[in-house]
C-alpha cells in the first residue's frame, strides 16, 4: 500500500482540460487519487517542472517476428551502440531495432507507459506475447494484421459483416489482440501473384475483392463489434509519389459512418503514418509535399484520426506487412532484404534504410511529417509517432517535439540541407511559423492516443481512478528555455517517471522496473456454426498448424487486462 504525492508541478492533462495549472497529484496503490487523500509517503517536488500522464504510443513496432528479423539481420545496428550493464538494468542492445530490454528502458526514460505494437501476424502471436513479457516497464497491446486475411476477404466480398465480426472476435481472442490492423489491403496478398493493389479499386487476384471493399467492410465490422479502437489502416500505395490521392480515396470510405462504442473514441478510421501517404508528384524528380491538400480534408472530418510517422533523418530498419513495398524499397537501395509469407494471413518485409540528410527526397519526407502536425487543427486526433523503426527510431520523439515546438530548430536544420532550395520549393515548411505548446504535445503523445485507442479510462490522463503513470519533465512552462536543444534533452531524460505508482526513472536513469501488462480486447460476440466450420476447414486444408495449436493459451500471455465488450449491434 504505497502512497505518493507530486507537489507544485505545472500539470498538462488534456483529457481533463488542464492546461498547465499548478496542481498536486496524489497516488495510492498504483492509482491516481485526489491529492487530499494522501496522508503519508514519498513527496516529489515538481515545482518549476512539467507534469503529464505517462506517454501512450499508438503505433510502434517493438515486439514480434518482424522486429526479431530486423534484430537478426542487423548485427551492425548494435555495434558501438549498446549500453553495458548498469546498476539497475540489464545489458541493452541496438539503436534502430533495440532489444526488448533496451526498448522498455528507453521508452521509460522518455516518460512513456504504454505502447501499441501495430502489426502482429496472427499465426505468430505467441512470439509477440513472449516479447511483451520480456519488455520491462511498458504495458503493451498488439493489433493482429487482417488486411489480407483469407477469411475476411471471403466474408467481406459476400457482404457478410456478421460472419466477419464473429471471425474477428474469435481472432482477437485467439491472438489476445486489441483491434483490427489493416496493411496494404489486398495488395500484400496480390503480391503472392507477383502483383500489388496500388489504387483502392485494383482487384485482389483470385479473391476478386477490392481494397475499398476490404476497408469499408472492416470499418463496419469494427463498429458492429463496438471495439475500443477503430480500424487502423496503412493504406495502399504507401511511400510512392502521388500516394496522397490513394490516401484521400481511402479516407473518404469513412464518410457517413458513425461510431458505436462505449470507450469514448470518436473516430471510425485511424490512418497510420500519414506522412508516407501524403506525397505529391509523379516521380522522384517532381516529388513534393501534399500535406496542405491532405490536411484540408482531414481537418474537416470528425470521424478519422491519424498518427504522423515523422522522418527523423537517421539510419534505421524498415519493416512492414506491406511485402511488395519492401521489395520495391530493396530495389531502390540494394541493401539487405528479408521477406516472409504468413500463410493465409499476411506477409512482411525488412530492409535497412538510411534517411540521408543530403538527399532531397528524405528532406522532403522530413518536412511533410512536420507540416501535417503543424497544419492539424485538433491534436487529439494527430499523434506523434515515427512508425518506429520505419521513419526513425522512437528514441527520437524528443527531437521531433523540439522541431514541433521551435521554428528556430526547424529552420536551422532546413537551411543546413545540401538541397535546401529544392526542399523549400517542394514543401511549405519554411513558411510555417506555428510552434506547438506543451498542451498540444500532451495531446499528441498521451491524451489523444489513449482516447483513440479506447483506453482513456486507464491511460493518458491524471484523473483519480486512472493508472498512476506520471511523467515529470524538467521544463518550466512559465520560463521555457531559449535553446531548443534543452527541450529535446528534457523530453529525452524524464526528471521522474512513475509507473503504476513506482518511481522507475529518476533524472533520466532507470532505477526500478515494474511488472508490465498485456492489454487485449475480449469481444463477446460469439462464433456461429458457419464460421466455426469455416475455421475448422481452413485449418484442416491450408494451415501448417492445427487449430488446437494455434490459439495463444492463457498461460502464454503475461498479466492480461482484457477490455470486455458486448457487440452493440448483436
Amino acid at each position: 500500500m504505497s502512497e505518493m504525492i507530486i507537489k507544485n508541478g505545472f500539470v498538462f492533462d488534456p483529457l481533463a482540460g488542464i492546461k498547465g495549472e499548478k496542481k498536486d497529484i496524489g497516488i495510492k496503490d498504483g492509482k491516481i487519487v485526489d491529492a487530499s487523500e494522501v496522508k503519508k509517503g514519498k513527496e516529489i517536488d515538481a515545482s518549476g517542472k512539467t507534469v503529464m500522464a505517462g506517454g501512450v504510443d499508438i503505433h510502434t513496432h517493438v515486439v514480434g517476428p518482424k522486429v526479431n528479423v530486423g534484430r537478426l539481420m542487423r548485427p551492425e545496428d548494435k555495434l558501438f551502440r549498446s549500453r553495458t550493464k548498469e546498476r539497475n538494468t540489464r545489458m541493452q542492445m541496438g539503436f534502430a531495432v533495440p532489444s526488448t530490454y533496451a526498448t522498455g528502458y528507453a521508452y521509460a526514460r522518455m516518460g512513456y507507459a504504454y505502447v501499441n505494437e501495430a502489426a502482429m501476424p496472427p499465426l505468430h502471436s505467441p512470439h509477440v506475447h513472449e516479447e511483451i513479457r520480456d519488455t520491462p516497464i511498458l504495458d503493451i497491446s498488439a493489433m493482429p494484421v487482417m488486411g489480407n486475411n483469407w477469411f475476411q476477404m471471403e466474408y467481406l466480398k459476400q457482404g457478410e459483416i456478421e460472419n466477419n465480426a464473429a471471425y474477428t472476435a474469435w481472432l482477437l481472442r485467439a491472438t489476445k489482440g486489441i483491434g483490427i490492423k489493416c496493411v496494404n489491403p489486398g495488395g500484400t496478398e496480390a503480391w503472392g501473384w507477383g502483383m500489388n493493389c496500388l489504387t483502392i479499386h485494383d482487384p485482389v487476384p483470385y479473391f476478386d475483392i477490392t481494397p475499398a471493399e476490404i476497408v469499408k467492410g472492416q470499418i463496419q465490422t469494427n463498429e458492429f463489434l463496438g471495439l475500443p479502437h477503430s480500424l487502423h489502416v496503412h493504406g495502399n500505395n504507401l511511400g510512392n509519389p502521388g500516394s496522397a490521392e490513394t490516401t484521400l480515396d481511402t479516407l473518404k470510405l469513412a464518410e457517413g459512418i458513425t461510431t458505436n462504442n462505449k470507450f469514448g473514441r470518436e473516430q471510425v478510421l485511424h490512418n497510420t503514418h500519414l506522412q508516407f501517404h501524403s506525397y505529391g508528384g509523379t516521380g522522384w524528380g517532381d516529388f513534393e509535399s501534399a500535406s496542405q491538400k491532405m490536411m484540408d480534408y482531414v481537418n474537416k472530418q470528425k470521424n478519422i484520426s491519424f498518427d504522423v510517422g515523422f522522418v527523423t533523418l537517421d539510419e534505421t530498419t524498415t519493416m512492414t506487412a506491406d511485402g511488395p513495398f519492401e521489395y520495391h524499397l530493396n530495389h531502390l537501395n540494394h541493401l539487405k532484404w528479408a521477406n516472409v509469407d504468413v500463410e493465409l494471413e499476411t506477409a512482411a518485409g525488412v530492409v535497412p534504410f538510411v534517411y540521408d540528410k543530403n538527399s532531397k527526397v528524405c528532406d522532403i519526407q522530413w518536412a511533410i511529417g512536420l507540416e501535417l502536425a503543424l497544419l492539424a487543427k485538433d491534436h487529439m486526433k494527430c499523434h506523434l509517432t515515427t512508425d518506429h523503426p520505419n521513419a526513425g527510431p522512437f528514441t527520437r520523439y524528443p527531437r521531433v517535439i523540439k522541431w514541433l515546438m521551435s521554428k528556430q530548430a526547424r529552420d536551422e536544420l532546413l537551411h543546413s540541407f545540401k538541397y535546401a532550395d529544392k526542399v523549400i520549393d517542394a514543401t511549405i515548411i519554411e513558411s510555417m511559423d506555428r510552434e506547438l505548446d506543451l498542451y498540444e504535445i500532451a495531446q499528441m503523445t498521451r491524451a489523444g492516443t489513449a482516447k483513440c485507442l479506447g483506453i482513456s479510462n486507464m491511460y493518458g490522463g491524471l484523473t483519480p481512478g486512472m493508472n498512476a503513470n506520471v511523467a515529470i519533465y524538467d521544463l518550466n512552462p512559465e520560463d521555457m528555455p531559449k535553446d531548443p536543444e534543452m527541450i529535446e534533452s528534457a523530453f529525452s531524460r524524464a526528471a521522474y517517471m512513475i509507473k503504476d505508482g513506482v518511481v522507475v526513472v529518476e533524472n533520466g536513469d532507470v532505477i526500478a522496473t515494474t511488472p508490465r501488462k498485456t492489454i487485449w480486447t475480449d469481444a463477446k460476440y460469439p462464433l456461429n456454426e458457419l464460421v466455426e466450420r469455416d475455421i475448422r476447414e481452413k485449418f484442416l486444408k491450408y494451415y501448417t498448424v492445427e487449430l488446437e495449436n494455434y490459439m495463444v493459451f492463457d498461460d502464454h500471455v503475461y498479466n492480461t487486462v482484457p477490455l470486455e465488450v458486448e457487440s452493440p449491434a448483436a
Partner: protein
Amino acid sequence: MSTVTITSKGAHELYLEAYNVTPDAFAGKTAAEIAEIECHEGNYKGTLGEYFDIAGSAGATAEETTIIVNGDCKKIKRIGQKMSAGNVIVEGDCDMYIGGWMQGGKLLVKGNVDSFCGIAMAGGELTVEGSAQNHVGSAYRGDWRGMTGGVLRVKGSVGNDIGTFINGGTIIIEGDAFIHVSTHGEGGTIIVKGNVEGRVGGQMVKGDVYVYGDIKYMMPGFKYVDEVEAEVDGETAKFAHYIGDLGERHPKRKGQIVYGNIYKKL
C-alpha cells in the same frame, strides 16, 4: 615524438578488450594516468594498469605518440581500434580486431594476428609481419560499409573473407588466401601475391583484384576480356583481365558499364 611502452602481465583468464590502447586515448597522459584508462575483461570493467606495466609518457597529441606493446598479447583484442594518428608497434602476436575502424597513423604487428584485423579501415597503414586469420579488412558482420581507405599489408598468409564490401583503400596479402576475396566489392584494390583457393569477386560490383599465383576455382560470373600491363605494388607485370560479377547489377558511368576486375598474373 614520445614513446609509451606497455608490457602485458599476461595473467588474465578471459580475453582482454584493449580498445583504448591507441595514441588517441593515450595522448597528453602520463604513465600513471594511462594506467587508469578503462578496458574490459568479459563483463568486468578494469583499467589498463591492472593488465600492463606502463612506462614512459605520451606526447601532447595522438600524432606525437608512439605506443610499444610488449609481452604476451595472444589474448588481447582491439589494439589500435579507431586510431586516427601516431604509431603503435606490437612486438609479438595479438588477438582479434587489431586496427579495426582505423582512420590514420601507423600500426605494425611483428607477429601473427587473429581474425578481423583492419575491418572497416578508413585510413592509415596497418602492417602485419606474420599471418592473419579471417575477415582481413572486411566490413563488420552484417554491414555493407567495408574498408574505405588506407593500406593494409599482411606479409604472411590469410584465411577467408578478405575485403568483403571493400569500397576503397588497398589490401596486400603477400602470401596465400583461402576463399572469398572482395565479396560484394564496391571499389578499392586487393592484391594477393600467393595462391587463392577460390570465390574471388563473388557479387563484386566494382574495384580491382590482382592475383599473382593460382586461382584454383574461378567464379563462373567472370569473363576473360583482354590482356593488360599494370603496375602493382611497385612492380610492373602482365595480367589476364576478367570482368564480373556478371550475375550482379552494375552501375553506368559516362555511358559505360562499370564492372569489377580480376587481374591474374601471366
